[in-house]
């Protein structure tokens, strides 16, 4: 039993830390720290910096241009990035499609698409969810019918995150109505320039534009864009979801958020003394800090187990449930700390050049709180995660 990182891991951490200190643009870190949305240019710039260093795709094998890191290294990388408020890597190409192509793509697809992901030539988005399907992914109805060398796609996808920046989308489509629902699904790559595609923004609860709906009307896609075999898509979908869940616990993000909260509670006064000395507030902070510290170890324990076993098992479900509870509780405390000053619509004060009534770098506390209610819903709601765990423990 040894809870400290190995010397090699420590050196790895130092290397990451040094590089970040020298290369992360200060303006970018400031925006991330304040919870501002980053524009496309910022994100592409960050990807380019990481790619130049060879660290953009930490989890890909080196032969494909990745860094070939193991899960613990990837955890350390995330922790260090969060510590200094580096932007989050946009996951759709790097953490979702990349691993899928590496595992299921043909040589041509790997050769063509993987470098484009790393170079930033392509910005991918995800076409999984559909309106009306919710957590029941297998009920999807978007159809792809074979017509000569093409598939013709009709239907609708939704919750497509950052689709407004993307030039390509990977989709789950129904290619057969036979057999079990899961058996007629295929995984296909679509150029968003193809005629018949329309992308419409969905505005979220806090007012931001982060997700989209995508409509397909007779969209003709070359058959070579199919990944894997026709009707093999469900296997790929599950593989992708598994990879989507890397670092699903979000420990680094929660640590970053907790650090900010702690600073805020020391800065703000309530009834004449720092909020951090208000017993009730401080106790709730202590409670979530205990949970977060435990989560950090739970996460590492499960990473090590997964690494030893070669399979994450049900760990991601557990990490997602508790990880999102912790982040949401920190968000709750941060917006609560602001009192009435949490209320102003964040963009309005900035636009009108009105000085914010409270620490300006926390002006988006309520905004983040509402936006992060998504954490327990998207990517398989916490109720679905409980079902996954219960099935494993108690059976159907």
């Amino acid at each position, binding site marked *: 039993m040894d809870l400290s990182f190995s010397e090699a891991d420590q050196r790895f951490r130092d290397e990451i830390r040094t590089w970040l200190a020298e290369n992360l643009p200060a303006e970018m870190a400031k925006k991330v720290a304040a919870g501002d949305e980053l524009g496309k240019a910022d994100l592409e710039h960050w990807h380019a910096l990481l790619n130049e260093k060879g660290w953009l795709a930490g989890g890909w094998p080196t032969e494909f241009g990745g860094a070939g890191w193991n899960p613990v290294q990837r955890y350390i990388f995330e922790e260090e990035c969060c510590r200094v408020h580096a932007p989050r890597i946009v996951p759709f190409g790097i953490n979702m499609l990349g691993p899928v192509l590496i595992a299921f793509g043909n040589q041509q697809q790997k050769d063509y698409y993987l470098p484009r992901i790393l170079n930033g030539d392509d910005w991918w988005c995800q076409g999984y969810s559909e309106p009306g399907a919710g957590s029941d992914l297998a009920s999807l109805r978007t159809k792809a019918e074979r017509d000569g060398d093409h598939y013709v796609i009709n239907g609708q996808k939704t919750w497509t995150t950052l689709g407004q920046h993307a030039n390509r989308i990977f989709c789950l489509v129904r290619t057969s109505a036979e057999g079990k629902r899961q058996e007629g699904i295929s995984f296909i790559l679509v150029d968003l320039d193809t005629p018949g595609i329309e992308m419409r923004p*969905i*505005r979220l609860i806090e007012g931001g534009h982060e997700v989209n709906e995508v409509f397909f009307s007779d969209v003709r896609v070359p058959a070579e864009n199919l990944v894997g075999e026709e009707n093999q898509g469900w296997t790929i979908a599950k593989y992708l979801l598994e990879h989507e869940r890397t670092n699903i616990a979000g420990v680094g993000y929660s640590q970053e958020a907790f650090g900010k909260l702690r600073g805020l509670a020391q800065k*703000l006064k309530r009834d004449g003394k720092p909020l951090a000395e208000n017993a009730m507030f401080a106790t709730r902070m202590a409670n979530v800090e205990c949970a977060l510290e435990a989560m950090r170890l739970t996460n590492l324990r499960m990473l090590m187990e997964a690494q030893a076993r070669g399979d994450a098992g049900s760990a991601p479900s557990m990490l997602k449930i508790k990880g999102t509870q912790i982040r949401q509780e920190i968000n709750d405390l941060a917006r609560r700390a602001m*009192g009435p000053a949490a209320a102003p*619509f964040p963009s309005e004060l900035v636009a009108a050049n009105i000085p914010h009534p409270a620490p300006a770098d926390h002006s988006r506390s309520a905004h983040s709180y509402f936006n992060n209610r998504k954490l*327990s819903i998207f990517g398989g709601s916490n109720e679905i995660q409980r079902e996954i765990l219960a099935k494993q423990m108690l059976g159907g």
Partner: protein
Amino acid sequence: MDFQPSETRRMLADSITRTLAKQCDYERRRAVAYEEPFHDPALWDALAELGVTGALLGEDKGGFGGEGFDIATVFEAMGGALCPEPMLGQLMGLSVLADAGADCEAALAGEERLALAMGEPGGGSGLEPPETRARQADGGWRLDGRKSVVWGGGSAHRLIVSAAHESGMGLFSVRAEDAAVAPYAMIDGGGAAEVSLDDCPAECLIADGQAALDRAVARGQLALCAEAVGVMDHVQGLLAEYLRTRKQFGVPLSKFQVLRHRLIDLCVELEQARSITLKAADALDRAEGTRAVSMAKALVGQAARQWSEEAIQLHGGIGMTWEAPVSHYAKRLVMIDHQLGDSLWHLERVAEAYKAA
């Protein structure tokens, strides 16, 4: 003992609800609540016409209501439609004017809109003693300072401002055009403003203003509790309807035991919130009023957070969208706890009684 509302109050509630159904439906509310002036002057006038503003003061002050139950009636009905009209400022402003023996007529008729400028920058509870200073000059008063997150501040004709002066804390009347008022939308809709007072002319309403301010704030706290009850009551309908109609894995959500039980837990909290708000309304003007109001705000604040988070969660992705009415109701429920003391603040006040052995 009688839990039935009086005929007058029932009629007032009905007419507010009918008016809001017509003039403040979901679409209209979304259009109005986030765009300057962050409310609908025509709706304001219609509500005043119905007697809503008049119901906020008692007959001895020129109104025809003014009791806790009147205030609760008005705000619960407004909460049901998520009405963004700046009635909270009107309520608290009128309370101060009446205590000052000032002329309330225009405000009672709704012709003059009031806002209470109390909180200041720095991110406290908004209930701390003011740092804004008042001084006498040229036979009048001048104010210097900044007031923050003044609800309805952008649409008010008159601001009631708390400020420290040589011998205590006073309440002052400031004409909106004399102050620098910067209005903005709040995240849950409706408007607030930052108010800069720079050698600003003012009229002193009450030189020793703490008691009047406390009364006004207690009325506001009660109003917020009642509003939250109205909001939760509406969300209860939305949620039950959603669970009954939305299908997942081929069956309506209402068949999933986990969701059923969570809805029931919410309903229990709603009934509790309703009860404690009645209690606060009843006790408002009695000695135990302050504690009763804090009990209500503490319980309602927690129930409201639970309702908000669960309403979003049980709606799934839909609940996360601006398009869905439930998301705006959910935001309001959380943000009510940011006004006039949150549940922690009020629990502390409730707990003070335990100290005296």
